[in-house]
C-alpha cells in the first residue's frame, strides 16, 4: 500500500472532499475551459487580477481526486501573487510532476502542492494533476493580453 499512499496523501483527500474556491464567481476577467481528453475530466477556471496581482480564482469541474485536489491547492496558493510569481510557481510545479518520483518539491514555494509529488511516479496521473495548472497558465496569458495590450507597433 506504500505506493498508493504516496499518491493519495491525506492533504489531497482533504482538498478533494472540501475543495477551495470551487463554484464559479459571476464576475471575472477571463474564463477558460480545459479538458483532459484521455479521461474526460473538465474544468472551468475564472481568473481576475488587479494591478498584476491575482485577486480571485474560482473554478468548477468534474474529475478524479488528483485533478480536483490539484486545482483546489493551486487556487489557494496562487491567490495574491503577482502573475509573474504565480507563473514561476506553476513552472516549479510542472517540473515536479515530470520528476518521475526523484523530487520532493520545495514546501516554501509549493506549500500544500508538495503533497502531489507522489503523482510523478504514476505517469497516467500527471495530466490529472496538471489540468488546473494548465488552465491557470492559459488564463494568465489571456489576462496579460487583455490588460497589458502590446502598444509597440500600434498607436
Amino acid at each position, binding site marked *: *500500500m506504500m505506493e*498508493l499512499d504516496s499518491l493519495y496523501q491525506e492533504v489531497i483527500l482533504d482538498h478533494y472532499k472540501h475543495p477551495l474556491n470551487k463554484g464559479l464567481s459571476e464576475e471575472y476577467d477571463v474564463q477558460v475551459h480545459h479538458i483532459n481528453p*484521455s*479521461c*474526460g*475530466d473538465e474544468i472551468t477556471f475564472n481568473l481576475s487580477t488587479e494591478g498584476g496581482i491575482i485577486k480571485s480564482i474560482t473554478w468548477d469541474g468534474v474529475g*478524479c*481526486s488528483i485533478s480536483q485536489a490539484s486545482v483546489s491547492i493551486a487556487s489557494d496558493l496562487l491567490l495574491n501573487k503577482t502573475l509573474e510569481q504565480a507563473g514561476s510557481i506553476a513552472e516549479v510545479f510542472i517540473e515536479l510532476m515530470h520528476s518521475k518520483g526523484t523530487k520532493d518539491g520545495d514546501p516554501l514555494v509549493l506549500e500544500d502542492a508538495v503533497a502531489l509529488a507522489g503523482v510523478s511516479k*504514476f505517469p497516467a496521473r500527471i495530466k490529472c494533476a496538471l489540468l488546473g495548472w494548465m488552465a491557470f497558465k492559459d488564463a494568465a496569458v489571456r489576462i496579460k493580453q487583455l490588460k497589458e495590450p502590446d502598444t509597440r507597433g500600434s498607436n
Partner: protein
Amino acid sequence: MSLDVATIRKDFPIFDRTVRDGKKLIYLDSGATSQKPNSVIDAEGDFYRFHNAAVHRGAHQLAEEATDAYEGARSKVASFLGARAEEIVFTKGATESLNLIAYAMGNAASGSRFALTSKDQIVVTEMEHHANLIPWQQLAARTGAQLTWFEVLPDGRLDLNSINEVISENTKVVALTHQSNVLGTINPLDAIVARAHEVGAVVVLDACQSVPHMPIDVKTLGVDFLVFSGHKAIGPTGVGVLWSSVLEELPPFLFGGSMIENVTMKSATWAPAPKRFEAGVPNMAQAVGLGAAIDYLSKVGMDKIHEHELLLTKYFLEQLQKVPTLKIIGPTDLELRGSCISFTVGQIHPHDLGQYLDSQGVAVRTGHHCAWPLTRKLGVPATTRASLYLYNFEEECDLLVEAIVKAQKYFA
C-alpha cells in the same frame, strides 16, 4: 465447466508474472486489448526467423513461403467468418478498416451507389467508439452529406422506435457497432439490416467486440462490411480485418505498390480486391500471427468461448450488483449483452477506483472508453470497465469485488 481455463491460462505466458509488488495479475481489460498465447507469439517470431521475405514480389523460395503464410492467414480469417478469401482485406486495425471504407466511399465516382452528396445521409449510433464515428463525421463534412444517428435509451439499448425515420430513403450508409465496448449491449441487427437494405443503403458493422467473443458468420448477419482488430482476438497488434461482399464495387483508399494492375507515367489501373486495398508491403508477420490466433480460438471453439463468457458475465453482474452504491451502466439482462461490464461506484471517480484496483493487481479500464458522446449522453463523465475473455474465471470476480469494497473504505 465447459472450458478448461486453467489449461488455457498455461498457454498465456503473461499470467506467470506478477504486478505491483508481487500481486497476482487479474487482467480484466481484454476489451482494450487481449493477452496472447505462445502459439501467436511464436508464429509472429517464426515468420521473421524462418520465412521473412516480401510477399507477392520476390522470385525466390522465401518469397514463396512468405506468400503462402500470408495468404494462408487470409484463408483462415475467411473460413473463421464464413466468407471467401477474396473478401478479406488485411489492414493495420479496425480503425484503419473503418477509415478505409469511409475514404473509399469518398473516392467513389459520382453516380456510384457509394458516392455521397448533400442529399444523402449517413447513419451511426450514439454508442459508437470514436473509430466508428469520426471517420463518418469527416466523410459527411467532405461530401456535405448529413450525419444522423440512433439514440441510446437509459437502459443502454438503441432506440429503434423511429427506425423508419432514422434510416430514410436518402440513407446510403448505416455504420454501427455489434457489441458496445462500454455498455456491453449487443445490437439487434436484423431490423436494422432489413431497413437499410430496403432503402438501398449498405451496413458497416464494427465487430471489434463481437468477433473475438462469439461465433460469427457474415452471411447470417447480412451486413455488407465487417471490421475487427487482431489484437483484441488474442492476435498481434498492427493487424486488422476488413470483410466485405461488395469490395469489387469500391475504389481504393491508399495508392502505391502491389495494388495496381497497370501503371504509366500518367495513370494507373487497379488490381482486383483484396489486393486493391493492400498498398505496399503488408504487415505479414502480424497477419500470420492473426492466423495462429484464429487457429487457437477455433481449437478451443468459439461457441464454447461464448458460453464461458456468458456464464462469467452472469456471475460478475450478480456479484457486482451486491456491492452497495455500485451501478451497472448498460443492460443487466444477459440476453442483451456480452462481457464488457461498465459500472460506477458511488461518488468514487473511476480514475481513483482504477488506481486502487491496480494497487491490488486488478487491471481495469477507466474513462470514457473512446465513446465520449455516449458517456455524456448517459450523464456519467466516466465509468470503470471490467471486460472478460476466455482466460478469466469466477474467483477473479470475487477478488475484484473485494478490491472495490476496500476502495470504498479507502476513499470514504
